[in-house]
């Protein structure tokens, strides 16, 4: 549920008048463009080198299976650390303390599933796609069609959230128009994928992951330095920090009045300021822990390494990088809460996504310093690179499903030359890329918040049961995976459609009307303060108050206007049917159950015949697809 609120904030954050130019001050904007230009130049150079190598399908889809375990570990981390996790978790910690940190744990634990039961068997029996794994012992055409549909659905959900979130993020940071940044992300990403295939995509992920980790280490170093790198010292400073105490008092409301300042500070390190519904929390945890292993763009990464042992090494490295990164977010989040302050962070972006970038600016010397803006520019450029890289991975996964599973596997009946297949893959990439850009632009200002969690829920309820039971259960067959994948995915999507995630016009009016009504009084009060402000500092602060009050009214009115004349949600409901925001706790067990039921409906010769071969091969690696000589 936190992903949803995080992205909701990302997607609906309205740039405040004072921030119309973005968080980077105009006179230093060239720095952001310079840093980002350097990153683009580097990734384009890599793409140029890669493009000369990509001649065969194996090169395009799987980088010739010549990626080393360590490289693949960094690339997995690059694929996984999306803007939501990079900026969002630090932001949640800066606003809500402990709950934000607790939230990050599930993203790491997810890789235990990948490591133990998915990575090596998939490497041993797979070729390029999820469809190849499912087609091994099930009816190839049906299995590949199901896998391709599921891959494309999951990728489009995830991709839309990335595109919309990314567009808003770039606008907030550097003030570039939403449409321009969506098109820029799309065109760049297409250049990597179309010309460089998996080779370039892998290197873009590696470059981005290294930059992201470097940026975080730098920020943590300077945040922790004043406390002599003492953990208790740092946390004690957080507890006794007046900004953090004020934030807790604001979150708690009335009960806070009877608490001492230290108690308020301590409360920030305790659970319950953000996550209120444990069942939803567990449901999201299930989707993360089981969904990551069913994410097509993550699965695909295991086909790029030469052996199962390298697949194992790559997950170990990915876990070290991803886990290390999430441990650092505690310092980033608390550092931002102390140095920048929750009120300032939330004023720029309600979901806290700007906590990391604002901390960077503070550490470098503040809003008007060269170094502060260089740091901010660097973090902003890394954020942009992050979105491009994650979208590239998703587009490559769906394009592979379209060309390899549907076009070659189903339509051409596995008869296509290398040249034809690579051309089909490139054309598919362009189609998916253009769809991504169009959806990104059409979804401007839409509530796409629930889409990341939904992508994980669909992957966990549809792909994972099918893959896991195909690999480990003797009786599993085509009927099972078709039934399980259909029911799992439709249940997850259906439950979200009737959940509180959707927009309910009556609810929107009920929440925003009071803000509009209270607006004039607030603005008048702020203007009165401005009128009596003694000096420039006080005047600037008061002016900001006025701007904030005005922006709140504009924002609330815009939300009301957006639902004018409507009374029901997209599926015709006035209020949500269920209170659950994350469908996983229902749809995941149902997905597994339907694979079981479907399989038991009848036996299939091919599924039975191929079981021994599959089982021996996934455990021993006999006949696993090797690397191409190069």
């Amino acid at each position, binding site marked *: 549920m936190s992903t949803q609120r995080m992205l909701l904030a990302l997607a609906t954050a309205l740039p405040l008048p004072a921030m119309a130019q973005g968080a980077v001050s105009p006179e230093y904007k060239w720095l952001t463009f310079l840093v980002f230009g350097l990153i683009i130049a580097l990734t384009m150079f890599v793409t140029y080198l890669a493009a000369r190598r990509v001649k065969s399908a194996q090169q395009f889809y799987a980088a010739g299976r010549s990626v080393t375990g360590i490289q693949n570990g960094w690339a997995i981390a690059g694929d996984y650390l999306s803007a939501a996790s990079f900026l969002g978790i630090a932001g949640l910690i800066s606003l809500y303390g402990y709950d934000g940190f607790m939230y990050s744990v599930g993203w*790491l634990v997810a890789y235990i599933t990948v490591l133990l039961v998915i990575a090596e068997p998939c490497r041993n029996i797979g070729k390029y796609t999820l469809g190849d794994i499912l087609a091994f012992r099930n009816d190839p055409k049906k299995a590949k069609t199901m896998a391709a549909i599921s891959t494309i659905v999951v990728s489009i959900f995830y991709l839309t959230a990335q595109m919309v979130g990314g567009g808003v993020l770039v606008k907030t940071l550097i003030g570039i128009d939403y449409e321009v940044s969506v098109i820029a992300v799309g065109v760049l990403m297409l250049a990597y994928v179309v010309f460089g295939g998996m080779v370039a995509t892998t290197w873009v992920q590696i470059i981005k992951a290294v930059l992201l980790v470097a940026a975080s280490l730098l920020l943590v170093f300077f945040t922790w330095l004043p406390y002599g790198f003492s953990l208790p010292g740092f946390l004690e400073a957080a507890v006794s920090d007046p900004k953090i105490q004020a934030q807790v008092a604001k979150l708690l409301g009335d009960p806070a009045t009877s608490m001492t300042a230290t108690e308020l500070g301590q409360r920030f390190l305790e*659970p319950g300021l953000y996550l209120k519904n444990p069942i939803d929390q567990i449901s999201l945890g299930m989707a993360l822990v089981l969904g990551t292993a069913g994410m097509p763009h993550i699965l695909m990464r295991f086909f790029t390494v030469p052996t199962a042992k390298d697949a194992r090494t790559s997950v170990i490295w990915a876990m070290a990088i991803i886990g290390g990164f999430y441990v650092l977010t505690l310092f980033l989040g608390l550092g931002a809460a102390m140095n920048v302050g929750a009120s300032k962070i939330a004023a720029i972006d309600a979901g806290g996504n700007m906590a990391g970038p604002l901390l960077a600016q503070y550490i470098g010397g503040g809003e008007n310093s060269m170094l502060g803006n260089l740091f901010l520019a660097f973090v902003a450029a890394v954020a942009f690179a992050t979105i491009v890289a994650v979208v590239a991975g998703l587009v490559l996964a769906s394009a592979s499903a379209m060309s390899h599973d549907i076009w070659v596997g189903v339509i051409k009946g596995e008869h296509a030359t290398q040249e034809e297949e690579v051309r089909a893959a490139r054309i598919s990439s362009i189609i998916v890329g253009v769809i991504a850009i169009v959806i990104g632009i059409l979804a401007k200002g839409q509530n796409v918040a629930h889409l990341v969690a939904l992508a994980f829920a669909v992957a966990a309820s549809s792909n994972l049961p099918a893959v896991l039971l195909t690999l480990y259960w003797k009786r599993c067959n085509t009927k099972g995976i078709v039934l399980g994948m259909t029911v799992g995915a439709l249940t997850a999507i259906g439950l979200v459609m009737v959940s509180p995630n959707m927009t309910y016009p009556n609810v929107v009016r009920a929440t925003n009307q009071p803000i509009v009504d209270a607006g004039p009084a607030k603005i008048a009060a702020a203007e009165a303060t401005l009128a009596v402000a003694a000096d420039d500092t006080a005047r600037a602060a008061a002016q900001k108050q006025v701007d904030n009050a005005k922006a709140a009214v504009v924002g609330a009115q815009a939300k009301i206007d957006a639902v004018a004349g409507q009374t029901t949600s997209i599926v015709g409901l006035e209020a949500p049917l269920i209170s659950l925001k994350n469908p996983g706790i229902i749809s995941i067990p149902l997905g597994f159950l339907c694979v079981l039921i479907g399989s038991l409906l009848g036996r299939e010769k091919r599924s039975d015949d191929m079981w021994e071969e599959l089982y021996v091969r996934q455990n021993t690696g006999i006949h696993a697809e090797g690397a191409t000589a190069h």
Partner: protein
Amino acid sequence: MSTMNWAAVNADPRFQDLHRRKSRFLWGLMIISVIYYFMLPIGAAYFTDLFKTKVWGVINFGLIFAWSEFIVAWGIAWIYARKANAEFDALAAEINRDAMKGAK
């Protein structure tokens, strides 16, 4: 690939042994990690007093438990990698070698 006798490899006692050892080990680790992970949201929601108990200065049990999640995840990964590198890979390679010989 038709030259490979999969049923014979499957029936090989060494393969059966590898399979048995690997399955027990993998699913055991998997269950431990899932239980340990879900103890965090459940604990934070239903055992708040325990999570708020201060252990070292301002550091409370909840923070230590959250950090322990990272240690346990890394620990499981490390234990698995060690076992697989030392034991499963060697067994699989042996079966693989003999099977390829038999196929010729």
